[in-house]
């Protein structure tokens, strides 16, 4: 099994099936095309995207539906094509694709989740894309717990 150096877990053996491919990289990280998706029961529901090219590059993420149960993803035709998803078929979150909100932890302030630009992973092809959701009203720095607070 291939091995890689990680920021959080030391050296890790990984299964090629856990690798996700960002053909276009991510905004600000254009050259980062291969990440390992790490899901561990002791850190659930938090998941990790560890770069396979840069050991110190790690993203923490939560499923978008955990952050906001009403979250609705919109994919443009070219985004579906980039992910290798069929044009018209209805897509099921968790089955056809996994949408993750990247988390930002700033010292001394609340944790925020990026709902404006979720990372979308196509389950079958393992292709991934950070998809900006224009006109959605979602924020790049959605405060965790915000929705719950406004409901109470």
């Amino acid at each position, binding site marked *: 099994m291939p091995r890689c150096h990680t920021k959080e877990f030391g050296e890790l053996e990984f299964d090629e099936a856990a690798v996700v491919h960002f053909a276009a990289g991510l905004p600000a990280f254009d050259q980062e095309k291969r990440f390992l998706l790490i899901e561990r029961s002791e850190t659930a529901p938090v998941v990790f995207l560890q770069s396979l090219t840069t050991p110190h590059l790690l993203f923490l993420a939560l499923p978008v539906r955990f952050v906001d149960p009403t979250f609705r993803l919109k994919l443009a035709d070219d985004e579906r094509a980039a992910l290798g998803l069929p044009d018209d078929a209805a897509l099921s979150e968790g089955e056809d694709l996994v949408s993750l909100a990247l*988390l930002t932890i700033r010292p001394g302030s609340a944790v925020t989740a990026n709902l404006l630009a979720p990372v979308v992973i196509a389950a079958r092809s393992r292709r991934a894309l950070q998809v900006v959701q224009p006109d959605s009203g979602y924020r790049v720095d959605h405060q965790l717990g915000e929705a719950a607070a406004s409901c109470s």
Partner: protein
Amino acid sequence: MLVIRRRAGESVLIGEGVEITVIDVTGSRVKLGIDAPVEVPILRKEIQLAARENVAAAEGASPDSVAMLLAALRARRP
């Protein structure tokens, strides 16, 4: 902020060498054509927002922050 009304086919000039043309307007969407020197970066604003947030997200991801995050999530869902 300077506000200018333009119709499809009309342009705005910004500084030396930047021209923005309204190509088409459909419903709430505007298609713009931009002519600019190669050294002028052109970015959809939300991509720039995402890029900045990605940099902040990568900086904030440390072993300490994982523990802090898990503690915060447990506090949120007692």
